[in-house]
Every structure is written in C-alpha cells, then in structure tokens.
C-alpha cells in the first residue's frame, strides 16, 4: 500500500468505528436489541485496531503485538469476573483507560519538548492532569470496592481546602509550562501532583456513595480520552471520549438526583461529608422480630410481594436464594416484583445485574418511579439488605440528613419485613423509623441464610408439595 490511500482507508475505518459506537449505545436502549449493540461495537473497534496496524507510521510490530497479547491476557480474566465483583472491575477499567490516555499524552509531550507551542501545551497539560487524577482516583475506588481499603469515608478537618490547594498547584504548574515551555522539569511535578490529587479526591468517599463516584470517574476517563483526541487531532478518540464522558455524566446526574445531592456538591468531591452529623438521637425502642417460620407463613398468605434488594444482598451473595424464593412464590400464584432504587448497591444498575445473573426475568425488576405506586396494594414488602433507600424519614423528617432523598415507599405496604444482621444504623448513620412501625417485622440474620430458611420452611411445611 502506498502512503496516502492507506491513510485515507484508515480514516474511513475510523468513521465506520464512530458510527458503530453510536449504534452500539442506541441499541442498548432495550435488552432485546442490546446484544446487537455489543456486536457492532466489537466489529467497529476490531476493524479500527486492525486498520491502525497497517498505518505507514507504524514501523515496528513485534513489541506492539506482544503488548496486545499482554492486554488480552489481562482483559480476558477481567472480563470473566463474577457478577458480584463487577463494581471493582469497572473501577479498575476506568483506571486502565485513564492510565493509557495519560501515558500517551506524556509520550507526546516528551517527543515535542521543549518546543511545545502554547496551545498544544495547554491541551496536553489538561489531558494529562485529568488522566492522572482519574487513574489514581479509580485505583482507590477499586481498592475500596474490593475491600482492600476501608469502605468508610476517611476525612479530616480542612480536607476540601487541602485537596483544592493540591488541584490548584497542578493547574499552576500547567499554566507555568504554557508560559515557559523550557521548564521541562515542571512536567513530571505536574503529573505527580495530579496523581496525588486523584488519591485525595476519592479517599474521603464512603462505600454507599460509590455509585456516584464510579459514574464521575467514568465521565473523567471519557473526557480525558476526548482531550487526547484534541491533542492528537484524532476525531475517533474525540467521538469515543465524548460518548463515554456523556454517559458517565448522565449516570452521575441520575445518581445525584437519587441521593438528593446537588451537582456542584458532587463535582467538588464533597461526598460522604454530610453523613457525619446524625448519630446522636437514639433511644432504645421496641421492635418486633419474627422467625423464618412466621415469615414463611406471612409470605405464603400474600397475593402480592415486592422484594427490595440492597447492598446487603450482594455482600451476603443471597441472590440465588432469593431466586428460589421467587420461584416458589410465583409457582404458587403470588405476584412477586423487585423494587430497584437507582443507588442500591455499589454502582448504577448493580442490583439488576445480580438478579439477572440469578435468572430472575428482567421484566420483574422495576424502577423506583414505576414501583412506588404499587406499594399500597402490596401485601408484603420484603427488604433484603437495604436501609437508607427505604427510610421514610427522607419524606417526613426535615431534620434528617437524608430529607428530600427519593425513597422506595415500602412503609405503605400492608406488612414490611426487613432482613438485617442487627439493629446497627445504615451507612448514613441514621436511625430508620421504618423498623419501629407496628406493621414491621425484623428478621435478624444473614440474608442468604435467612432467605434459605424461609425457602426451606415453605417447601417442607406449609407448601403445596413443591
């Protein structure tokens, strides 16, 4: 192939890739067409990668092929993780994406340094700063999700001030580099400060805020790729980065709304901090508890049951036992649905994936806005490992830190049953008035064991043979 036509051919594959990316996301609108979306995405990416290998600028192959093989060797196990590990895998992939964008920016800089034009220096600087902070921030998030690092928020006085000072330092270094490109020794300092800022950004954030953080990091990773496209004048990177950035941004906004946080609150990394206040007011109040036998009896007498899963279900790996319960109840003519709060779990859509893995049909997984109207006609709301998203104080108690947060209206069901390890407060440290209502029964125990016991009771005792 001669130079120019080859280059044009490659550019056409990039245009094809951009179209494929948009179709892939468009077809993700429904589970029916989603598989087709993944296929077109795979084809588009594959064609672009193969075409790039024929780029006349590429003059050595051996090491590139080795790097591709290593990448595939890392990617396959990361693609095969269990569904419960998907949040940390996702955080790790944000880290990898941001790492590669940052490294390419750094390489571009050193190829051109010290004669980098002002405008390009600004682009590279911004790109490398966002890529670097997303890299370390995502690693911290992955560490928290994998529970290598503590999930609780780690905070100290004046934290926001210190963090913002560090960010300002990174930007000041970038501006200095734009004005004085000859100070090349400042570049590694800028990268280092950005890496530190990424750590400071995510360390203060607690586990329950992870859905927002992971979406925000997704958005940052996307925008760093788009900025890299600006640096390299590569339109396909601009398109892919813009799509990824937009997707992360939309998810962040949805997560914010579901937690009643403002968007600026999230952008400036202020998560996890409103939670500190609300532990004081706690008196011992009586709750009613029940055994698996009693719970089984109530469930088998119901016509309509709504199950509310939360992070506790994921931790206890209870989803398969929940499926057995679902199977038994539906087989006996009881209408069973699942109520999914947008921030249930550790990432957007986390509960849906776990329940789909356990073979629960997706048309039974109902979004908060659609299920809330059904609670008044519900006989039993069974809450498994969810807490704050069911707290009626969010609706009624203006002094509650979560006041205004949209919740699942489980308290409107005729009977509420809550599977919970103990009376310890939820992540937000807020007492849940739901537990003291007359219609509420507390089922104390591990979610998996308790649901298992209920299923055993149903199939052996009161059942119709099974």
């Amino acid at each position, binding site marked *: 192939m001669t130079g120019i036509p080859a280059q044009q051919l490659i550019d056409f594959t990039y245009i094809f890739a951009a179209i494929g*990316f*948009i179709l*892939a*996301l468009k077809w*993700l*609108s429904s*589970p*029916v067409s989603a598989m087709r979306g*993944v296929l077109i*995405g795979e084809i588009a*990416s594959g064609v672009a*990668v193969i075409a*790039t*290998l024929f*780029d006349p*600028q*590429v003059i050595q192959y051996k*090491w*590139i092929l080795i*790097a*591709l093989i290593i*990448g595939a060797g890392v*990617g*396959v196990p*990361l*693609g095969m993780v269990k569904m419960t590990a*998907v949040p940390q895998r*996702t955080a790790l992939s944000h880290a*990898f*994406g941001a*790492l*590669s*964008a940052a*490294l*390419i920016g750094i*390489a571009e800089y050193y190829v051109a340094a010290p004669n980098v034009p002002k*405008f390009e220096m600004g682009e590279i600087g911004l790109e490398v700063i966002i890529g670097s902070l997303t890299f370390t921030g995502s690693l911290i998030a992955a560490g928290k999700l994998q529970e290598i690092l503590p999930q609780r928020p780690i905070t100290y006085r004046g934290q926001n001030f210190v963090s913002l000072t560090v960010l300002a330092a990174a930007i000041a270094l970038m501006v200095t580099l734009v004005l004085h490109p000859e100070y090349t020794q400042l570049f590694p300092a800028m990268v280092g400060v950005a890496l530190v800022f990424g750590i400071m950004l995510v360390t203060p954030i607690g586990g329950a805020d992870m859905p927002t953080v992971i979406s925000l990091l*997704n958005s940052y*990773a996307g925008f760093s*790729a788009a900025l*890299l*496209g*600006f640096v390299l*004048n590569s*339109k396909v*990177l*601009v*398109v892919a*980065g*813009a*799509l*990824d950035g*937009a997707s992360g941004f939309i*998810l962040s906004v949805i997560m914010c709304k579901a937690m009643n946080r403002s968007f600026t609150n999230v952008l400036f990394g202020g998560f996890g901090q409103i939670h500190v206040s609300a532990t004081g007011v706690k008196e011992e109040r009586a709750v009613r508890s029940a055994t698996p036998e009693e719970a089984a009896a109530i469930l088998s007498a119901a016509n309509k049951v709504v199950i509310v899963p939360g992070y506790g279900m994921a931790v206890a790996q209870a989803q398969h036992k929940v499926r057995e319960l679902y199977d038994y109840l539906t087989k006996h003519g009881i209408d069973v649905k699942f109520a999914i709060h947008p921030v249930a779990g550790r990432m*957007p*859509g986390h509960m*849906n994936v776990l329940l*789909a893995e356990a073979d629960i049909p*997706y048309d*039974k997984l109902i979004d908060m806005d659609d299920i809330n109207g059904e609670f008044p006609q519900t006989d039993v709301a069974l809450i498994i490992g969810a807490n704050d998203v069911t707290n009626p104080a969010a609706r009624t108690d203006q002094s509650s830190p979560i006041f205004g947060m949209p919740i699942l209206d489980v308290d409107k069901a005729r009977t509420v049953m809550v599977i919970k390890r103990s009376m310890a407060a939820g992540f937000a440290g807020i007492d849940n008035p739901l537990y003291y209502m007359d219609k509420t029964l507390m089922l104390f125990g591990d979610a998996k064991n308790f649901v298992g016991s209920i299923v055993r009771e149903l199939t052996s005792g009161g059942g119709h043979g099974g």
Partner: protein
Amino acid sequence: MPADFISSLFVFILAAFLGFEVIKRVSPLLHTPLMSLTNALDAIVVVAAIIIAGRHESRLSVILGLIAVAASFSNMVGGFLITDRMLHMFKSGKAKKQ
C-alpha cells in the same frame, strides 16, 4: 487557535450532544452494561497508543506507548467480554418459561 482545535471541538460537541440523546434512552435496567460498554468503546485509544509505540521516536515514547497499548487493549477485550456476559443474563419472563 489552531484550525484542528476548532474542527475537533465541532466533532466533540456534536458527539456529546448525540451521546446525551442516545444514552438518555438506555433503560436503568442496563446501566451496569452501559458503563462497561462505554468503557470498551473508550478503549479505542489503543489506536493512538499503537501509533505512538510504532513510530519509534524515542525509547521513552515507545515504552509509554506499549504500556498504553496493553492497558487500553485489556479494557477493550475485557469490556466487551463482560458486557456480552451480562447481557446474556437478562432474560424476559416469557423467554424464561419452559
């Protein structure tokens, strides 16, 4: 302001706008696969990494480029793989009944 910047900005704004319109319609049911799919699509930065590594301009640029090739290609492979696995799990009630 370089002309390249203006044309990139043009593409960026259109793509981001289109992204908002398309992604808004993705069912909340599929938000986890959405994230893993966009991650895999974003891994197209591997093409830039291949060029940087393949141009052989300096030892540093080759090394950084190769790490970037491995990191982004692992995202491409892993991202598509897990999205595919997740979507296979989503079955409707009718399809499930035997």
